[in-house]
């Protein structure tokens, strides 16, 4: 039953603490994590990105070119449909498929830029509130309470009313209304971090406050911010659609999914495809984003890794 010395050595060589093995271990772990990525969700997001980046190459038609002779054509499998317009045309004769493909651009831009703006704002305020505490914390926290008590659509209408609709303005609105979630979570983490001994050590070493925030606290809370961000991309896309639906979003000839929903609403009783396809596009994209966010959250959670 006794194991040979050679065997023991072989075992030991596995747990050798050499530099190379540590790196190999890391890449191995990364590979393992990526193997667990939800394939369908990744495919959806990939498709979205491809559509957004290469829309002129993929789209069969010009998304804003009107052709009234072809107005309200049904999708190809219905009577009267043709393969030239796979998903049919809208009331102005524009190809629905092409408009959805171009609309992905708006969704991607708004989704990522909105998350970036609100995430940076919220994380910054959260770190500041959590680290300094006291009056600064009080002011920032009351501000988040105010933001949470106001319906975001109300704020959006007010701001858009003041500065006018448009892509940049939507991103500004999303930034202003959506930072609260980051601030509340990041503040809590920064608070417990700022009481930890390594921050104390950094203070004793004479590190300046902005350096402590930037070098010591921020990287330690970034995990949560990133996870929150990925889960928020879907939310941003829905908010953009809602704003466009209300006519507060992207200006008309530009294709956006929310705008298409709004346009199709009138024709819903006899031309269902106008509103249904952009609606499906929104639903699938948000689903993909959320699944990917869930995966990332689990992967970045050390407790989950113990289980796996």
């Amino acid at each position, binding site marked *: 039953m006794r194991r040979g010395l050679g065997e023991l050595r072989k075992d030991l060589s596995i747990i050798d603490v050499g530099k190379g093995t*540590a790196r190999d271990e890391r890449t191995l772990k990364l590979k393992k994590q990526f193997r667990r990525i939800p394939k369908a969700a990744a495919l959806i997001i990939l498709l979205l990105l491809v559509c957004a980046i290469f829309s002129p190459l993929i789209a069969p038609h010009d998304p804003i070119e009107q052709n009234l002779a072809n107005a309200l054509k049904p999708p190809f499998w219905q009577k009267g449909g043709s393969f030239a317009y796979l998903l049919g045309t809208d009331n102005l004769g524009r190809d629905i498929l092409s408009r959805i493909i171009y609309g992905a651009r708006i969704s991607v831009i708004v989704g990522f830029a909105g998350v970036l703006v609100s995430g940076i704002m919220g994380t910054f305020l959260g770190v500041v509130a959590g680290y300094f505490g006291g009056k600064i914390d009080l002011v920032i926290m009351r501000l988040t309470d105010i933001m949470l008590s106001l319906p975001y659509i109300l704020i959006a209408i007010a701001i858009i009313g003041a500065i006018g609709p448009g892509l940049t303005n939507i991103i500004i609105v999303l930034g202003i209304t959506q930072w609260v979630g980051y601030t509340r979570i990041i503040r809590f983490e920064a608070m417990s971090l700022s009481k930890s*001994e*390594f921050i*104390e*050590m950094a203070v*004793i*070493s*004479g590190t300046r406050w902005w350096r402590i925030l930037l070098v*010591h606290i921020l990287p*330690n809370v970034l995990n949560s911010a990133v996870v929150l961000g990925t889960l928020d991309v879907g939310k941003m896309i829905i908010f953009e659609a809602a704003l466009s639906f209300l006519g507060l979003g992207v200006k008309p000839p530009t294709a956006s999914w929310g705008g298409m929903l709004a346009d199709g609403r009138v024709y819903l009783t006899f031309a269902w495809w106008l509103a249904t396809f952009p609606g499906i596009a929104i639903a699938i994209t948000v689903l993909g984003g959320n699944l990917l966010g869930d995966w990332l959250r689990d992967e970045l959670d050390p407790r989950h890794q113990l289980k796996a």
Partner: protein
Amino acid sequence: MGNADCGLRNEETWNKTLVEYGGELEMKTLNSELQTPNSGDPILEVKDLQIHFFTDRGVLRAVEGVDFSVRKQEVWGLVGESASGKSVIGQALIGMVAKPAGRIVSGEVFFKGEDILKMAPREVEKIRGNQIAFIPQDPTTALNPLLRIGFQIGEAFKYHRGMEASNIPEEIVKVMGVVNIPSPEQRLNDYPHQLSGGLKQRVIIATALSCQPDLLIADEPTSALDVTIQIQIIKLIREIQDRFQMTMILITHNLGLVAKMCHRVAVLYCGRIVEEAPVRGLFKDPKHPYTRGLLASLPKGEKGNVELYTIPGQLPNPLYHPPGCSFSPRCPHALSKCQEIPPMEWSSEDHRVRCWRWKEI
């Protein structure tokens, strides 16, 4: 009073204590000049330091009027049980009392003749980490898990020495060599999770030493380590103190450690120093009943099942310290007089004690 065996009154027991608590560690001969009373210039003088914590349940008097001075190149020990206020004193010396509850109510802390507590925050920053360094209790939480250790050791350099980035790695390697971290050039790029507890504590010590401080405050530097590593770390700190002629304040509850390391030692009870003496004097001839109790409760190397002595009673609730001498409720010698706070009295030229009855007992 039946407690004649409390103190360690002869040379033999004294040496036994050293053997018990020092293990194989060789005692370096302490600088004898520092053993002589009232010699050497004080580098740190603390006068009437009072630190209170204002909590929802009332005022917690963590430190109630502490006076002491630490001389250059001396190792000064501060012993006391948990919650006696020893760590709070350590924090106050580097201006890091936990806010907003904790407040330094009164007192003066003179470092090289200047009162730290009255300095502008900027001035304190210049001294802290540069001239006064700090070693915390737990090395596992004192390092940022996301940064390479070389970077963390170098932080103090960057700020206090204004060193150019290209010179820093060499300096860091040098400091890491001083604390005996093997192959420092490679370790430089390790993250804290790749190090053992002992190595982490070495890294912390390296951080503290990086600017060659004049005063090192070590707050239970070994309490989070296991015994074999403790000896290594103690040896290291002792060596470094000797080599760089640093002044050191050692905060601990380990009397064996004090016996090995310190020139002079103060015993803290409920936020007050009850006795201060050169280490030999304290161990051989303790005056205060609390100090006697502490020493009596040490194992003395007897064989067989010998029950250890325990001081009766418990540490009082820190929110309601007893009136007068805080130790009186537990003291076998307490009289009605002890309801008043006894003054600090010099029993000999280098030994002081805060007890009404030190002459009699």
